[in-house]
């Protein structure tokens, strides 16, 4: 089978699977967040933590809860790494250095899962299971919770009535509450992530992924050398790594490791998992705002960008320069022979379009322009479909910006889902879309200006620049995948990238909650023939266009000196 045929088949299968999931899974999530009942397990958690699940939170309170929860998570994770040598199942690993522990703690709490270390030679089983894996769940759930809170801001249709806990208007309060973070967090983990992960992990184990608590097995290889084979609770971590768009691999080579991703079909399954929540949440959004077409429009814009990006990536991977690629017909360097170029391109595109950052191939080895497309995916702010939750709220912010420009062009104060986009809303939306470009550009600029950090680059020329740009783009957008090629486990990079991840996660999150709070206060505007329809292909096209143009204009100079300089001949 040729590369392109294989690629098209994989894509068709994926699209079909996601289309099938969209409705039932989106509807299921809708019910999760509107249900008035608490499960016994949830009630137990609320009692333990002293949370009153029936009280709504204004956006400021919601944001404070998110930040407090995340701060505690960072501290906990940091401490656990520092003292892992004193904990059981430490495999003989010593405590992690302060800079790396900070970087890793932030990385896993922010759903980035940038790894400046090799999992199998740094982290003990306890750290992996009770630290990193827990944050895989928590950070994914935080993203979804915030997205749901943001949607509630759009959806709020009437004055608050206390009808029940957790429901749209069910929370008791003054009217601009956007839900209860603790309830959203708990329900996401208990009702969505955990059930899927239990089932999914079994499927992965069936496929050959391992799940044990073994240490290193040293075996003699056929060639007579010695090889250490590390066991561990891999499948349980692998499943949430994909589902929660985390991407932090148990092993350094991530999903290219046969224990993480044993076969071609598990590869496809993993791609599906990492896209599943992102592509289904728009349905939940549509249901929550009471207009399913709005959800369809958002998912259509996501799909348009995703498929476009994939086509570009595949085209560049197949049309190649250089002796070896021309001889074998595609840029095979850095790809796993089990998966091939097409499957690798799909995985790479999916992992950079979401905030996953898991890899099954070596992005650094992609053709310059193929690599640029991966870089560009992240620069989009990961909105197609993006990280769990964060993709949806990122896309909604872009929709707000699109509606603003489009709304002016039809001669009305812009409105989206019945809410007016005024100065306050634009302030929050602008701050949101400013944050990550600032982090990425500043980080890259500063790194390139410092001789010490340039020394960490293993490659020179345009490719070296691409690697630094990739690192900051990945960290700032909470992706976590790496181009590699630079020594990032240094105090400077660990600190700088840690800061990039932290600001890249929490500043936008605060701004988007602020936007939601501002929208929640508004009484809705009735829809008339003069209202800009935001469910038609016209709007979908414009939304995708605005997304691409804003990002292209922001990063064109940097891309020109990196991948373009390298790739255009």
């Amino acid at each position: 089978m040729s590369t392109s045929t294989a690629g098209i088949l994989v894509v068709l299968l994926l699209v079909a699977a996601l289309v099938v999931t969209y409705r039932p899974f989106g509807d299921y999530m809708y019910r999760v967040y509107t249900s008035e009942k608490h499960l016994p397990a949830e009630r137990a958690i609320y009692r333990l933590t002293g949370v009153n699940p029936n009280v709504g939170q204004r956006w400021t309170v919601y944001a404070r809860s998110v930040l407090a929860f995340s701060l505690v998570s960072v501290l906990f994770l940091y401490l656990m790494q520092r003292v892992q040598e004193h904990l059981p199942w430490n495999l003989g690993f010593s405590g992690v250095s302060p800079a790396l522990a900070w970087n890793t703690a932030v990385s896993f709490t922010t759903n980035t899962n940038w790894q400046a270390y090799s999992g199998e030679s740094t982290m003990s089983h306890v750290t992996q299971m009770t630290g990193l894996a827990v944050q895989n769940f928590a950070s994914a759930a935080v993203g979804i919770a915030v997205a749901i809170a943001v949607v509630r801001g759009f959806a709020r249709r009437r004055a608050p009535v206390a009808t029940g806990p957790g429901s749209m208007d069910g929370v008791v309060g003054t009217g601009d509450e956007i839900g209860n973070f603790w309830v959203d967090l708990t329900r996401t983990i208990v009702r969505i992530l955990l059930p899927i992960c239990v089932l999914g992990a079994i499927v992965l184990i069936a496929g050959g992924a391992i799940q044990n608590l073994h240490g290193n097995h040293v075996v003699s290889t056929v060639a007579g050398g010695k090889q250490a084979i590390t066991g561990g609770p891999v499948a349980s971590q692998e499943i949430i790594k994909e589902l929660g768009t985390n991407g932090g691999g148990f092993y350094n080579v991530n999903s290219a490791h046969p224990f993480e991703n044993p076969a071609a079909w598990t590869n496809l399954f993993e791609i599906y998992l990492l896209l599943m929540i992102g592509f289904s949440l728009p349905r939940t959004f549509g249901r929550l705002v009471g207009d399913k077409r709005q959800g369809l429009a958002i998912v259509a814009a996501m799909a348009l960008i995703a498929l476009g990006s994939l086509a570009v990536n595949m085209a560049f991977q197949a049309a190649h320069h250089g002796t070896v690629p021309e001889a074998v017909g595609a840029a095979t360097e850095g790809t796993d022979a089990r998966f091939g170029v097409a499957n690798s391109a799909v995985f790479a595109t999916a992992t950079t379009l979401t905030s996953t950052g898991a890899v099954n191939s070596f992005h650094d080895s992609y053709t310059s322009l193929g690599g640029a497309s991966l870089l560009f995916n992240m620069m989009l702010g990961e909105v197609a479909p993006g990280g769990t939750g964060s993709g949806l709220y990122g896309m909604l912010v872009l929709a707000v910006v699109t509606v603003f420009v489009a709304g002016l062009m039809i001669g009305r104060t812009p409105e989206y889902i019945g809410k007016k986009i005024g100065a306050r809303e634009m302030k929050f939306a602008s701050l949101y879309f400013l944050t990550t470009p600032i982090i990425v550009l500043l980080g890259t600029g500063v790194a390139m200006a410092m001789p010490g950090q340039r020394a960490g680059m293993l490659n020179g020329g345009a490719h070296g620049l691409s690697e630094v740009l990739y690192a900051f783009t990945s960290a700032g957008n909470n992706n976590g995948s790496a181009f590699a090629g630079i020594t990032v486990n240094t105090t400077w990079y660990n600190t700088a990238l840690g800061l990039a991840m932290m600001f890249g996660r929490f500043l936008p999150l605060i701004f988007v909650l602020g936007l939601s709070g501002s929208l929640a206060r508004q009484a809705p505007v009735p829809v008339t023939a003069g209202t800009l329809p935001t469910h038609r292909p016209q709007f979908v096209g414009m939304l995708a266009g605005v997304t691409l143009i804003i990002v292209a204009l922001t990063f064109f100079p940097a891309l020109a000196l990196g991948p373009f300089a390298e790739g255009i001949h």
Partner: protein
Amino acid sequence: MSTTTLAAHQDNADGHREASPAQPRRVGGGLLDPKQLWTSLPSAVRKLDPRTLWHNPVMLIVEIGAAFTTVLAITDPSTFGWLITVWLWLTVIFANLAEAVAEGRGKAQAAALRRAKTETVARRLVGWQAGQPVETATVETIPAPRLAQHDLVVVDAGEFVPGDGDIVEGIASVDESAITGESAPVIRESGGDRSSVTGGTKVLSDRIVVRITQKPGESFIDRMIALVEGANRRKTPNEIALNILLAALTVIFLLAVATLQPLAIYSKAQQPALPDSSTLTGDGITGMVLASLLVCLIPTTIGALLSAIGIAGMDRLVQRNVLAMSGRAVEAAGDVNTLLLDKTGTITLGNRQASAFLAVDGVSGAELADAAQLSSLADETPEGRSVVVFAKEHHGLRERTPGELRHATFVHFTAQTRMSGVDLAAEPGTTGARQVRKGAASAVTRWVREQGGQVPAQLGEIVDGISASGGTPLVVGDVIEGPAGSVARVLGVIQLKDVVKSGMRERFDAMRRMGIRTVMITGDNPLTAKAIADEAGVDDFLAEATPEDKLALIRKEQAGGNLVAMTGDGTNDAPALAQADVGVAMNTGTSAAKEAGNMVDLDSNPTKLIEIVEIGKQLLITRGALTTFSIANDVAKYFAIIPAMFAGVYTGLDRLNIMRLASPESAILSAVIFNALVIVALIPLALRGVRYTPASASKLLSRNLYIYGLGGIVVPFIGIKIIDLLVQFIPGVG
């Protein structure tokens, strides 16, 4: 709102749209006179003051860039450097010019108003009571500016009204051309809705006593001057939101350019053998080029034109003789979902007209027509005139002059009898004296019965039928003295109908496409109201409306999230005008109404509400279109500047030079020149506003996206290429 007011102004109102451009005081239909560019230049240069430019961050950054390149050009002179510097300064000046031109047009209007604001002397009445003869009152003469609120002044023919107020006694014809530009005098009288007079207007006949309502120094003319000059122009909510977006884009581009420097230094250092070029040296990109790139990328086009667009929007209203008290009101007009329109004068012609004569059985059509005509001969109301006209046009009855009928006594309409008609005396010595009456059905039937006549049952059916169809029935009856005593009969019914203005249905259809619901307000009964509403094509109606009903309707609409616009002129309209999001008061109206609304229509034409909505929309569309254009322009500029900067280091990047610009210097200079010239080229569009035709949101968006989005991408490629073809011949550039 009283019927008479609107009716009286109907002719004026309808004639206005055609007449407006021809009126001498007005600046022609929003077009730019090239001379204005020249005359506004000094003002544009004065605006270079950073303290003034502070309010426009985008242009302030351009100015800083220009100052920066000036220093560079002085320390390291080159043709290229000086050309860039000059064009960066020109960019700022062009932006200032746009604002200055827009303001200049307002200033011209303000100057005309100031001329009208002659210092007058007021004759204040002391201790005068209404009803007391003015001659007997004590009069003191004081300068007009010293008049306080509630002072009473007397104004005689030939004198100027010293301040805004309401007439408390008298009636006068007043020349208001100073304010409205309309030279025909208007009647102002005490009581009712035409009692207000404006300071600076001239009384042409008679004497009036005016109670001053303005505070000193806050006359209508003062406010008009302030408005057209834009003296206390504040940014509107939407303008603020757009400014935030522009600021955000500016920050992004500032950062993209600033962080480019270390990347450029690194890239250059990778190939140490390469000689320094005029764009890239070992120290990185030259300051000249960095400043050029920044100016080209930040949204200068919309940044330069934004305030001009706002001023011009207000100005377009002024040109249509509407004064908006704030830019916020103009913007709100674009957002209106519900229009409340008074039936009379707005939807229908001011008066009802005869549309049929329906005779009862046993009476011929000709007989009824004759009687109808007779009874209406002396009836000078529009309805009465229309009966005579109808009789002539449809029954061939020659119009008889009242003098033609000897022995005729005309009976005029009174509120008590609710009938009018004529008494024809018999020829001396004969019988056959005849009384003809027409009037309200109940009045005429009672009269016929009193005279001993019978009222056929059929009459009731005819009358009800007419009422049901939205018409007004007038019953005609007569009493003829015969030899056997007098015979009283009911002859038939005149059907009066409201005549819907031509073209209203199309306008309402257009409104509906724009998503605006029209609600007709009328004092008529629901049946009549419904019939007219159906005929005119409005979406809804409010019948038997009282001012309280109106206010309640507005509140209800607003509670549903709708923005409401309405017109009004009476004092009892004031609460509704104040409540409406866009309240347009008629200039003929009372001071209370004008105070309550946020716009005043000097022509007192209620139909203009529709134009006001369109102007509001046009204002927003112009902003959106130019923003889109401005951002789309950046694509081409990148393709000009990036290869110019880096093709020396990475030769592959020369393939991005798809315009094949001659040299790096010519490419950068061309982009900068294009960026500056496009501002001048778009000034007329900013002042005139983007063309607006009522259409659905989708259609409007598609059209504007194609023109300003796609056009914004394509035009600069062509423009920069053409400029490059010229500038490459400049020594040191090509």
